[in-house]
C-alpha cells in the first residue's frame, strides 16, 4: 500500500486531498467532519473583514443530463467574524494535529496583513494562502484577482507577508490573465513557499430566458461570477503544467480546478501538483467522495509500482513538448471493430463533416475524399463485414486517407469499437528540426 502522505513546503498532510478555500471549509464543524471522512487538509474559507453576501449566489451548467458540469458563484469571502473563525481553527488543530489547516487570507494594507497573519498563526494554522484570485466582488475593492492580475503588486504583497509569516505562504493565482507564468514567477520572486491554482474563471453561467436576466439571479439583475467544476479542469491542468515546467518555479504547487475523483487528482499530480484542492465536487456530493479518491489513488499507485504519491509528482511533465518538437512521422489510423459496431454511423458524420472524409458506408460509397493532399494512393477496398449485428450499417475506413485525427474514436459510443492503431512509430522528424534543416517550406504556400 503506497504512502499517500505529503510534505508541502513543510506543511504535512496524511494525504494530498485538501478542501479548497470555499463554502465546504467555512466552519470548524464542517472541517472536522471532512477530516473524519478522510480529507488530509483544509484551506479555510478566506478570512478578512466579514462581508455581506447576495442571494442567490450559485449557478450551474448541466449538459446532456449530467448535472453541474460547470459551476459558478458570486459569493465573497467569509461572512463570519474573525474571532469566531480563529476560535474554531484553534479547536480543529487541537483535535486534528496531524491534518493540514491553512488559512486563506485577503485584506488590503500592509498593517492589516500583519495583524491577520499574526492572529491566524497564533490560532495554530499550518500555513497561509493569499487569495489573489477571487474574480468577483473583492477585486472591485482592490483585492482578489485585481492583485493576481498585477504581478508587481502581487510580488510586493507576497513580500510583505513573508516579512510577517512564520508558517509557509502559498499564493493562490487567478487564471484571468494572459500568461500564468507572469504572476506565478512574481510570487516566487516575492518569496512564496508554494503556489495554488487555479482560482475561478470570470464567467456568466447562464441567462434566464424567461426573465432575460443573467444567472445566478439577484432580484432582477446579476453579475459576473467565478467559473469552476469539471468543465474547467483542462484549463487548470494547462496552467499547473506551465508553472511546473518552468525552471524558475522551484516551489510546490497545489492543483485546483474541477478535481472530482482520484483520476483527476492523479492527473494533476502527474502534471506537477503536490497537493490537490477540491471544492465543486464536495458541494455536489459531499465530503464522502474522498473515500474513493484515497482508495483509487492508492490502488493506482500500487498498480503502477509506486510506493508513495511523491513519486507521481510531475511524472507527466517530460511527456509535454512544445508543438514544434512533436514527431511528424508518427502515424495512427482508425480501425473499426465490425463486431462491436452498432451502426449508429456517428463516426461517418464526424469524419465527413468534421474531419477528413475517409470513413464511408455501403460498398458503392468509394470516392476520392475532397481533402486529400497526398495524391496517388488508391481508395482502399471495402472490407468484408458479414455476420455482424449492425450488418451493412458498419462503416469502413479508407486507411490510406486516414490522418489519424482521433475524432471517430472520440464520438463512437461503444467502448473499444474504434481504436487508433499505429502504422508508423517515431521518426524524430519534427517541425523545429525541419526549420533547422531548411525543410519547413512545403508546396502550396503563399509565395508559389
Amino acid at each position: 500500500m503506497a504512502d499517500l502522505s505529503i510534505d508541502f513546503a513543510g506543511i504535512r498532510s496524511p494525504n494530498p486531498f485538501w478542501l479548497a478555500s470555499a463554502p465546504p471549509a467555512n466552519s470548524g464543524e464542517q472541517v472536522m467532519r471532512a477530516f473524519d471522512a478522510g480529507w488530509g487538509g483544509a484551506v479555510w474559507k478566506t478570512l478578512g473583514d466579514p462581508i455581506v453576501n447576495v442571494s442567490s449566489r450559485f449557478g450551474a451548467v448541466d449538459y446532456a443530463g449530467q448535472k453541474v458540469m460547470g459551476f459558478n458563484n458570486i459569493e465573497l469571502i467569509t461572512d463570519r467574524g474573525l474571532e469566531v473563525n480563529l476560535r474554531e481553527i484553534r479547536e480543529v488543530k487541537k483535535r486534528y494535529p496531524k491534518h493540514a489547516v491553512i488559512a486563506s487570507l485577503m485584506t488590503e494594507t500592509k498593517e492589516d496583513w500583519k495583524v491577520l497573519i499574526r492572529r491566524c498563526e497564533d490560532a495554530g494554522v499550518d500555513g497561509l494562502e493569499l487569495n489573489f484570485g477571487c474574480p468577483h466582488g473583492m477585486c472591485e475593492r482592490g483585492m482578489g484577482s485585481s492583485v493576481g492580475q498585477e504581478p508587481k503588486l502581487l510580488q510586493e504583497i507576497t513580500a510583505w507577508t513573508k516579512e510577517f509569516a512564520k508558517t509557509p505562504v502559498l499564493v493562490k493565482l487567478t487564471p484571468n490573465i494572459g500568461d500564468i507564468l507572469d504572476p506565478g514567477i512574481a510570487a516566487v520572486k516575492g518569496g512564496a513557499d508554494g503556489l495554488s491554482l487555479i482560482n475561478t474563471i470570470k464567467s456568466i453561467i447562464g441567462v434566464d430566458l424567461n426573465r432575460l436576466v443573467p444567472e445566478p439571479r439577484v432580484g432582477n439583475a446579476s453579475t459576473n461570477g467565478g467559473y469552476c467544476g469539471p468543465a474547467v479542469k483542462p484549463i487548470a491542468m494547462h496552467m499547473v503544467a506551465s508553472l511546473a515546467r518552468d525552471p524558475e518555479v522551484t516551489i510546490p504547487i497545489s492543483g485546483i480546478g474541477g478535481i472530482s475523483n482520484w483520476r483527476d487528482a492523479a492527473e494533476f499530480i502527474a502534471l506537477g501538483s503536490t497537493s490537490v484542492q477540491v471544492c465543486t465536487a464536495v458541494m455536489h456530493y459531499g465530503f464522502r467522495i474522498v473515500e474513493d479518491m484515497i482508495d483509487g489513488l492508492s490502488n493506482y499507485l500500487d498498480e503502477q509500482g509506486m510506493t508513495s504519491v511523491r513519486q507521481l509528482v510531475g511524472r507527466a511533465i517530460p511527456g509535454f513538448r512544445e508543438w514544434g518538437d512533436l514527431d511528424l512521422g508518427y502515424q495512427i489510423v482508425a480501425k473499426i471493430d465490425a463486431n462491436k459496431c452498432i451502426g449508429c454511423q456517428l463516426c461517418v458524420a464526424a469524419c465527413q463533416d468534421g474531419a477528413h472524409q475517409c470513413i464511408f458506408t455501403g460498398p458503392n460509397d468509394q470516392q476520392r475524399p475532397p481533402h486529400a493532399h497526398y495524391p496517388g494512393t488508391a481508395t482502399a477496398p471495402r472490407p468484408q463485414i458479414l455476420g455482424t449485428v449492425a450488418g451493412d450499417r458498419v462503416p469502413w475506413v479508407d486507411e490510406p486517407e486516414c490522418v489519424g485525427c482521433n475524432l471517430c474514436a472520440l464520438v463512437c459510443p461503444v467502448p473499444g469499437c474504434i481504436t487508433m492503431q499505429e502504422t508508423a512509430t517515431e521518426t524524430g522528424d519534427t517541425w523545429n528540426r525541419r526549420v533547422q534543416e531548411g525543410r519547413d517550406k512545403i508546396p502550396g504556400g503563399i509565395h508559389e
Partner: protein
Amino acid sequence: MKSVLPQRRDELQLKDKKPLYSAAEARAEADRCLYCQDAPCIKACPTEIDIPTFIKKIATDNVRGSAKTIFEQNLLGYSCARVCPVEVLCVGACVYNAWHREPIQIGRLQRYATEKATEAGKPVLFTPAPPTGKRVALIGAGPASLACAGYLALEGHAAVIFEKRPFAGGLNTTGIAPYKLHVEDALHEVEWVQALGVEITTGMELGKDVFGKDLLRDYDAVYLGVGLGEDTKLRIPGEDGDGVYGATAWIERMKLTPTSERKLGRVLVIGGGNTAIDVARECALLGATEVTMVYRRDAASMSGYAHEMEGARKEGVRLVTRATPVAFERDAQGKLTGLKVTVDGAEQVLPCDMVALAIGQSKMHAIAAEFPGVELDARGCIVADPANGATGNAKVFSGGDCINGGKEVVNAVADGRNTARYLNQAWK
C-alpha cells in the same frame, strides 16, 4: 351538429399503459438518443419522421420545433405516438438493440412532443397557405383522409370530409385499444386537424346522403379513405342472436356507448390477428371472468404482434390453437352457452357467455360502384397506386385500410400524405 360523448363509457375503466412523460423524464430519455447518422429508426417509420431530429429538439427543450418536425412528416403524429407498434417499427430498429441496451422510447417521446405542443392555449404550429381555389372531397374521416385533408388544407386547397358516423376519427375513435388512446384524445386530434382548415361533415353516408357523381362534378378530386366494412361472420349454426359480436363493433360499442350493467362473464375471441388480441385484452381488463382466444392454426402462424400477445397473456388471456369453430350452442331461452370446435379433428365445447369474431372485415363494393373506373382486387380492396393513391378514375384517389386490407394507422397517414403531396405538386 356536434355529437356528444357519453360520460360513462367502458373504455374509461382502462388507463394508459404508457402514460405521458413528465418534462424531466422526456429530457432524460431524449438525452440518451445517439443522434445516429442516416438513422435506421427513420427508415423503419412508414412516414419517415426525422426521429433523431425531433428527439434532439426535446433534449434542448425545443418542444414546439420537435412537434413541427413530427407533423411535417406525419400529421397524425399525436395518435401514431400512442398506437404505432413501435416495437416492430422505429424502436425495433434502434441501434441500442444491437448493443443489448434499452432502445430509445421513441413512441413516448413523440407522444410528449405532440401532446405538449398541441395543448390548449399553445400557439398554432402551422399557418395554411392562401386559398388556391382547388377543392377536394374526402370520404371517411379516418387517419388516411384526415392526413390527406390536413396537408391539402395547409397548401391552401379546400378539403371537405364526409363521414357516415356521428364522430370523426375513423378507427382512432372507434377501434383503438383504450389503454393506448381514449376517444376524447382521438377527437382532440381531429379538432386539431380541423383547425388547419379542414371541414368535416358527419352523418353523411356515400350512396345515401352524398353521391359519387355529384362529388366528381363539384370537386377537383375525390379521396376514398373509407377503411374496411362490417366484421366478417363465421356463417355457422347458432351465430345469429345475443352474445355474438363482431370484434370491431364490440370495441366501438365499448368506446362510444354508455357503460352497460351487464357482466362480461366467459369470453371467447375468434381469430389470431391484432384485433383479436386487442379485444381479448380489453375484455380481460374490463373484468371478464375468463378470456380465451380461439385460433385455427398454430401460434406461430398468428398475424398479431408477439409483444401484443405477450401483453394479453399478462392480463390472463389464454390461447387455444388449431381449433375450428363448428357451431354455437344456446339454451332453450336462446342464451349463448358455448362454442363447439374441432381441435385436430376432435370435437369439444368451449363454454362461454360472449363471443367476439375477429376474423376480418368485409370490403366496400358499394363504394367503388359510385366511381366509374375505380376497381377492386381479388381481396376486395380498392386498387390504387401505393405511391400516390391514384385509382382507375383520374379524379379519384384512395388510401389506408381500404387499399391495403388493414394495416397500421401510420400506413394510412403515409398514404393520405402522399396523395396530398401528389395533388399539390400537380396543381402547382
